């Protein structure tokens, strides 16, 4: 069997290659992957696919009784339509709320100074409360009659 395998090598010469995998290429760590997924979550829940397909304007506009055009931030009366800005702002709030909870979870560890701990807690609470109530307000602007 060895004789058959060695046949090509009477004609060909094996080159002396010294190839190494570069050291900086390695599989990403868990938290890096989590960061990437969070970024994609931000984009997708902001309705970026809707923006690419339907191409809505960034902000809507309406004219008031004097003929001046005023900007409109939220496309009203429809759950299935959005402007680009409102989508991205809302998905930013979603991620902020999630980040608030993650910060709260990290605030419980030992080894933090008193100042750092108070900062982390207040930032966590702030993130959660602001994002939750802001989203509620946005939804009621978008759908008048929300929760009535």
């Amino acid at each position, binding site marked *: 069997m060895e004789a058959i395998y060695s046949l090509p090598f009477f004609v060909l010469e094996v080159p002396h290659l010294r190839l190494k995998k570069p050291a900086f290429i390695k599989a990403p760590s*868990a938290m890096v992957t989590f960061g990437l*997924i969070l970024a994609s979550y931000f984009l*997708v829940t902001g309705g970026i*696919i809707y923006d690419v397909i339907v191409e809505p304007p960034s902000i809507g506009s309406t004219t008031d009784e004097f003929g001046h055009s005023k900007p409109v931030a939220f496309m009203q009366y429809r759950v299935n339509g959005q402007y680009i800005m409102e989508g991205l702002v*809302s998905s930013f709030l979603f991620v902020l709320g*999630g980040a608030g909870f993650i910060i709260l979870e990290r605030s*419980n560890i030992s080894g933090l100074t008193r100042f750092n701990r108070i900062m982390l807690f207040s930032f966590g609470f702030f993130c*959660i409360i602001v994002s*939750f109530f802001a989203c509620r307000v946005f939804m009621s602007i978008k759908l008048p009659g*929300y929760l009535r």
Partner: protein
Amino acid sequence: MVTSAAIYHVLHAINVTIEIRNVCVFLAPLFSSLTTIVTYLLTKELKDSGAGLISAIMIAIVPGYISRSVAGSYDNEGIAIFCMLLTYYLWIKSIKTGSLFWSTLCALAYFYMVSSWGGYVFLINLIPLHVLALMFTGRFSHRVYVSYCTVYCLGTILSMQISFVGFQPVQSSEHMAAFGAFGLCQVHAFVDYLRSKLTDKQFQLLFKSLAITVGVVTVVVGGALTAMDKISPWTGRFYSLLDPSYAKNNIPIIASVSEHQPTTWSSFYFDFQLLVFMFPVGLYFCFSNLSDANIFIILYGVTSIYFSGVMVRLMLVLAPVMCIMSAIGISGILGVYMKNIEFGDSKAKKRPDKKIDTSYPVKSEIATGIVVMMTILLLTYTFHCTWVTSEAYSSPSIVLAASQQDGSRIIFDDFREAYYWLRQNTPEDAKVMSWWDYGYQITAMANRTILVDNNTWNNTHISRVGQAMSSPEDKAYEIMRELDVGYVLVIFGGLTGYASDDINKFLWMVRIGGSTEKGQHIKEADYFTPQGEFRVDREGSPVLLNCLMYKLCYYRFGEVYTEQGKPGGYDRVRNAEIGNKDFELDVLEEAYTTEHWIVRIYKVKDLSNRGV
């Protein structure tokens, strides 16, 4: 359908005689109750029973799932989600135990899933993706090997018993990932076995040569088979998920369905509220404690987020994993902070030697605050879900209701009025032409033959109907004579302000009409003004103002006064006075218009007696 029949026969066998119609109506709620139980079991496997209970409670009321599982909605998704979660639960069990018993059960659950919904393609790609992820992170073990081989072999053979699937698992690209992962499993297991038997140097040599050979052979054979068309490429339905603009540019009939539109942020918030905030938290907890099962749920979550962003209908697939992830997150947060709460009469306070941690002031109070905040958030979730379900997902779509300025409700029963008129006043063999949205309703309630219905499987035929609606009267008459049409039915919302009428859908009729060979002369741009707007008033395009759909909707509408201060023929949906008012119809005559002008039926006149 088999499920309904089975339940019906079982009940009748024990002399509980429930009519088959009632079995079908209540099938969806029954299976969603079962889904709740399976979600509990699945989350229990992933984290613990506390998280399981939270996820079961959340999925019981989440609007994203309720929208497709109300009593009376007899569609595939009613049982498909139950089957999908059951398959996933059994898969996680078999990954954790590596036993043949659980793997076989998983294959049987997969067979049930294949028989219920075409979305099984998602499963047969997610499970191999999970196996590949486990290989990539170095977690491949004999348990994974046994589970995947059993599930793939048994599952594929069982799925090929369904006639709709047939030989697709070995021919179409959608199933190739599973096949590839299967092969890779064998190679990986063999390599592990050899590594334990050979010396290091021999192993390295063998491994490198084998890897290169297998890689080259796979690429060559795969490429040759694809080039020879033995392996079919991704079909339109699934390809449009990977490339969302494909449907918009090439297959207008898929792009026109409103459920297939991409999702906006408000759909996410409307259907999930609290869950959109807790989903990243659950992801974070999964990433902190990576295990075989957690990797699976992470993959499921990430792929579902992407697919639900592409198509609103797939929010349904996202709903269970949102609930599971949020439950893991909530359970994690509560688990961390409940430990910190000190109750008034606990013995821990009395320990004098316990040092007060100065770096952590008011520990118990903060923990109580967090628990109270979480409770309030969950309460708001409940209120939101019940409000959404009652407002958006509970009304029958055939009887419309609107509230007037003084708060009273006005009921529009025009659809049923028109269908019963058709039933009682037209010959039994009359054929009705309408857009495909109303096909099933006309067949069921008016009991008349229609040309196209919601099944939408004959694209050319639908395109012909679209051409008839978009052409001027004389051209449309030729098409109607060719298709032997007796009556034409259109939906018109201009009097009442009903926005889902045929004029708003008209552009889709133009697009679909122009998408086949016979409709090449129909171009969408002709129906817009030179500035590119779609207008029905005097500035509107003359092609639009003379087409059949326009004439049928606005016949005699010019004499109607709809709003104070506006001229006659003011369309309340488009907010414009119509351009073409006083016209007569040559080849059709008005047969019936309902009370609020929502449904309008026209009779197609016969050929004139003497040739002109």
